[in-house]
């Protein structure tokens, strides 16, 4: 058995995390840092589902590690960020659908690379040679290379599969972490707000601890750059669909068009974010880091980097003879990204957001509970 397998033995990781969380619950000094600690304080016993919820609620800012009086070399050797990270990977596997594909998480690099290669080859295989007469960036040029129906069929199938896999995973997570709080619209909105703002990343306001006990906002900013860049790219796709199906305009679109602008800004944002996050990870203190999960982080970042970079390359060179190959490459990578979504670090966002919604619901229940008690006392 390799060391990483021993470290990630499910029962051992869960037991260790439970013990850490019990110590935290007796201490409570970190209460002001993020949503995790108030959630711990609402409990006395920690089921497997509770621990999964807490692990996914953790944004891995590591503030608690550096302020912990029980961190190594203390005999309690408390290291919550690492324990939560190890456990998160196990929960990603636990909730994955179809279940056998959970094994892909620990082979992310190989799987993503193979998929990207295979999908690119597929598009290279189905593409038709561009006609030498028509300019390669004229309207309809993309569909001349890969027929519209083929392109849509393949990407939609991959996207549909991703949505299905992610949805089942979300359903599994939600069921496993059920705790009796009802989730209303306001909890949902509060959780969404926390997700979009990353309020809990470096909770307490000063940011994350990357290298040591000093704080920095850089991780939040780079994550925003990546996340909102990703959203811009998604918006670009939606805008393109609107152009084509509502306005009846056939791609590729001019540089000044909305889809191209959104895609270009998004792509650049993603590249900046990825570069920053990789730099932070590479220079981070390894003590509070889960070795297995950080490898998966890198795979996801590289995959997104390739997706964004091939998109920008296609934009840059669509007027040249390289267009058809670049188109096949970009489409291949995008399809690989879709297929990978349920089995890579992407799922962290889904479970994190769900955990934040749960946390918001718990906060509401607690506040209203306190109000009821007060009223009873007044009466």
């Amino acid at each position, binding site marked *: 058995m390799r060391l990483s397998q021993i470290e990630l033995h499910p029962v051992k990781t869960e037991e260790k995390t439970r013990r850490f969380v019990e110590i935290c619950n007796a201490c409570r*000094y*970190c209460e*002001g*840092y993020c949503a995790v600690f108030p959630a711990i*304080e609402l409990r006395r016993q920690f089921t497997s589902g509770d621990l999964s919820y807490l692990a996914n609620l953790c944004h891995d800012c590591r503030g608690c590690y550096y302020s912990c009086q029980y961190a190594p070399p203390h005999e309690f050797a408390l290291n919550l960020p690492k324990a939560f990270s190890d456990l998160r990977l196990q929960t990603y596997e636990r909730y994955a659908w179809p279940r056998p594909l959970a094994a892909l998480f620990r082979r992310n690099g190989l799987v993503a690379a193979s998929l990207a290669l295979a999908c690119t080859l597929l598009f290279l295989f189905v593409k038709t040679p561009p006609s030498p007469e028509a300019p390669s960036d004229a309207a309809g040029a993309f569909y001349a290379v890969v027929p519209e129906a083929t392109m849509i069929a393949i990407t939609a199938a991959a996207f549909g599969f991703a949505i299905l896999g992610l949805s089942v995973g979300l359903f599994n997570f939600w069921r496993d972490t059920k705790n009796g709080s009802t989730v209303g619209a306001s909890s949902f909105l509060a959780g969404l707000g926390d997700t979009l703002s990353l309020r809990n990343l470096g909770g307490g306001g000063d940011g994350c601890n990357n290298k040591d*006990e*000093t704080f920095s906002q850089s991780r939040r900013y780079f994550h925003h750059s990546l996340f909102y860049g990703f959203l811009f790219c998604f918006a670009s796709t939606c805008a393109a669909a609107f152009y084509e199906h509502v306005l009846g305009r056939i791609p590729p679109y001019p540089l000044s068009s909305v889809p191209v602008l959104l895609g270009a800004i998004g792509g650049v944002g993603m590249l900046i974010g990825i570069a920053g996050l990789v730099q932070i990870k590479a220079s981070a203190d390894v003590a509070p880091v889960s070795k297995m999960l950080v490898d998966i982080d890198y795979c996801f970042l590289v995959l997104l980097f390739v997706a964004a970079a091939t998109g920008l390359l296609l934009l840059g060179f669509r007027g040249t003879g390289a267009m058809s190959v670049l188109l096949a490459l970009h489409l291949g990578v995008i399809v690989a990204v879709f297929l990978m979504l349920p089995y890579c670090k992407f799922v962290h966002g889904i479970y994190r957001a769900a955990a934040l919604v749960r946390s918001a619901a718990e906060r509401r229940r607690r506040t209203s509970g306190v109000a009821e008690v007060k009223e009873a006392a007044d009466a």
Partner: protein
Amino acid sequence: MESYDVLVVGGGNAGLSAAISAREAGASVLLVEHAPKALRGGNSRHTRNLRLMHDAPTATLTGRYSSSDYWNDLLSVTGGRTNERLARVAIDGTSPLLSWMGAHGARFQPALEGTLSLARTNAFFLGGGKALMNAYYGTAERLGITITYETEVQSICIMNGAVREVLVVAGGSTLRLKPKAVVVASGGFQANIDWLREYWGDAADNFIIRGTPYAQGLVLKNLLDQGVAPVGDSTQFHAVAVDARAPKFDGGIVSRLDCIPFSIVVDNRGNRFYDEGEDIWPKRYAIWGRLVAKCPQQIAYAVTDAKSEELFMPSLFSPVRAESISELARKLGIDAGALENTVRNFNQAVRPGKFDSNALDDCRTEGIDPPKSHWARPIDVPPFIGYPLRPGITFTYLGVQVDETACVLMQDQRRCANLFAAGEIMVGNILGQGYVAGIGMAIGAVFGRIAGKEAAKVALESN
């Protein structure tokens, strides 16, 4: 090591407050810390708040806590065993602390869940004492203070009323330093079991030391040996009841048990010995360490039942659980008949009342000695639960005498001109006995600032 204006001995709250103040007053400063970096900060690493006077609510403190409120609280816990002049200096000195600490990296938060009774009086550090220490160390480094870890002071040589030389051991070699002024902020001697044994005999072996194992009291002993005036009762300390299963050293906050007001506490013969419900817990938690220290074998047991378990903070270790009192007694190692008898007598003595865990309620006993004055309810709902208790020593009170400028006094009451003290090593000037939550950090911060400023003044004048 080159020569510094000011040498600060000890890298906890008091030492850092002194070092930062001395540096900002223009002195060059060397701070030597006995612990390695990961365990730096002395007992401050385990703290969570400090007690502050304030005339109006702040962002994290409710209401008003006047200088005279503070003084009255101190007077009541010490039973008058305090030096009023120094106590007033400490209390009034807490007034500007919030902004001074904030300006040097401290961050605060409202009172922690479960400590609402301290919301008015105590400012809580966001992330606790280690986070505060991290912030202070960062500030100290930015200010250009030299910090060395794993550096132990062997002796501070006093001649003709002033420190002439300081011997420190670092990395296996002994260095002779000649600072112009010295601040000692090296804590009490609570981690020195041999020293505790001088006053407590074998009982000391059963004490649990809640804080840093580096508080060996070597500097304190060295100074007292050279004719520095001692202060404080050598048997006095701040101690609470902790879980007997806690680590021998460094268990910190999580080893404490808050179950006592909702339990009965018996000694190893199964007898109660003190009113568990005498007053609200924040006003009584600090007497229980000493009470348990006086028990046979320095052990006691808190016993309660299922209906009370969720009334107090979750504990580091699960309680011992049993379906009957006799089974619980067996598991705890007390005579079953004796405990059954005590519980029966207690249950019969409980008078009906309206239970309120958050107030001094009217649930009390009648006809037993000692009584339980509040929160007395029959212990009758299984599973019954028990916790073994030991005295958990936070810090000792024996220290060096100082004046209002934190200057250390010799036995003839003359000032040791360039020697200053702050923190636990001089806390006995103010705490003759007893403790009130957050006052240790307050004294450390106030006298640390004073000591640093005064040391810088002395050092710069001699230049």
